[in-house]
């Protein structure tokens, strides 16, 4: 088997709590997964599921209770490995007394870049994330979205082979999110491996080759978004407008109304009969589409199952 960009084996993390730290809370349980070289991997899960814990373990910001992980074949304890990895923390915060240029220049020093290379790279990164006009402003005057861009710039500043992004879309407006998506796609085109965590499922569906879903500290599924979800259509949806009142049209009873538009969902077998009814009632049909299960539904089912299980444990515990 070819060497994976990121290999995680049985990684667990427990946090002690209570007055004497005698009790332990499991934050991550026996996580094993691989992120292949050159793929964009989405790490999905609700808040508190263990996404950031996993990423912090990979970045050696916290230490595992058991298990191991390797990035590009090197143990995560090997500090030199971090020269090939870029990391964007969740809700990044940088030295606010520095300008964007200074903070990037500061981080570039740890990668051993020569002065001329450093200047060149920093200028290119500022341009890439759209901050070249604000590079001389101290970060204390930056908006959340601008800080996120600085975070992205420092993560890819040194041309890393593996990029780990913790909630990169968090706090961004639609334009900012699109820019981050474009950067991720560009990284993919350049052959880099990207692991990013998110709870915005549409982003994951749009960008990822594969996703891993984590709930309650346990990995619940890994695969391509289409593989994880049963893609067999689950019926049809018709969107239509009614130019005049037709109270006796049976279809209207099943439809959801928004303004003068109606949306109705039907089994496949009933589609043509419904279309005939609408035609005879002079309805204006706007669209007919298949209903496909989404990654969101898959995700929500897992979360609800986990909550139900947790409740069951609570009840039996009582």
């Amino acid at each position, binding site marked *: 088997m070819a060497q994976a960009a990121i290999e995680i084996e049985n990684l667990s993390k427990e946090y002690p709590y209570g007055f004497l730290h005698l009790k332990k809370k499991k934050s991550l349980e026996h996580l094993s997964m691989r992120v292949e070289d050159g793929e964009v991997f989405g790490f999905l899960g609700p808040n508190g599921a263990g996404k950031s814990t996993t990423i912090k373990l990979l970045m050696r*910001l916290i230490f595992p209770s058991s298990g191991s992980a390797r990035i590009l074949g090197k143990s995560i304890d090997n*500090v030199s490995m971090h020269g090939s990895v870029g990391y964007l923390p969740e809700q*990044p915060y940088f030295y606010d007394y520095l300008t964007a240029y200074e903070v990037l220049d500061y981080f570039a020093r740890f990668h051993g870049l020569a002065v001329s290379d450093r200047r060149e790279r920093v200028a290119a990164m500022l341009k890439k994330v759209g901050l070249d006009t604000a590079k001389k402003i101290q970060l204390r005057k930056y908006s959340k979205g601008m800080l996120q861009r600085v975070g992205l710039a420092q993560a890819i500043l040194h041309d890393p082979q593996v990029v780990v992004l913790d909630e990169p879309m968090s706090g961004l407006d639609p334009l900012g999110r699109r820019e981050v998506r474009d950067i991720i796609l560009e990284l993919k085109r350049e052959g880099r491996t990207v692991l990013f965590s998110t709870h915005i499922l549409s982003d994951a569906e749009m960008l990822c080759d594969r996703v891993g879903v984590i709930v309650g500290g346990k990995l619940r599924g890994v695969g391509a978004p289409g593989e994880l979800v049963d893609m067999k259509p689950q019926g049809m949806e018709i969107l239509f407008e009614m130019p005049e009142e037709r109270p006796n049209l049976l279809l209207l009873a099943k439809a959801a109304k928004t303004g003068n538009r109606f949306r109705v969902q039907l089994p496949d077998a009933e589609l043509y009969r419904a279309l005939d009814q609408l035609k005879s009632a002079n309805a204006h049909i706007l669209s007919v589409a298949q209903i496909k299960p989404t990654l969101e539904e898959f995700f929500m089912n897992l979360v609800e199952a986990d909550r139900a299980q947790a409740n069951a444990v609570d009840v039996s515990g009582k």
Partner: protein
Amino acid sequence: MRNIRAVAANTFREAVRDRVLFNLVFFALLMMAAAILVGQISIGIEKDVIISLGLTAISVIGILIAVFLGVALVSKEMDKRTLYALLAKPVHRWEFLLGKFFGLVMTLTVNTAAMAAGLYAALWSVKHPLAPTDIYILVAVYLILLKLAIIVALALLFSCFTSPFLAILFTTGLYVAGLFAADLRTIQTIQMDPATLRLMQGISYLLPNFQNFNVMAAVVHAQGIPASLVWNATAYALLYSALVLVTAAVVFSRRNLK
């Protein structure tokens, strides 16, 4: 070395931009006021008063900066999470700690040097020309700086495993206890059982002995300061700081960030 230098330079830049060196304005005002007042109210001891006041102010201001900024060196980076992006770079945690230590020591050196210059200016204004023995003021300032380096190392150590409030409390407590370390070693004159006495003496050797760095009386009275005292104090400060920093590095190397 490159990583330590980068962190140290940034720590110094932070202190400058956060206007830490503004304390120099306070020191300058104090020295000016002292020079004017002393000239009017003291006869023959102007110089002694200026030197005592100046060295005490250099020491007190330095201690305040060393304790409060020393504790903030790590805790602020953890609270604000500025440390996250940095530690994900090819940087050892001990390099980060050493960079922080040297950055603050650099800040204190610049600050102390500026205050020493202010002290000489005040001295010159009340009694000029300066005497050759006034060079001892520089030795006293150097010893104050060594003392401050130990305090920074202690503040750094405590901030690696406890809250900023407790770290300030522990550092200050250890500083005060360290002022009496020499007294603890000679405590045998007091009635005490031998086991307790040995324990007290053992503790006294663990405490930083800040009396090693106090030469104010000798400087004020223009007495010579033996070179051996300066060498011993330098060696003691280097060794003590190094031990404290190694302990801090060990503690911080397995610290889980929030």
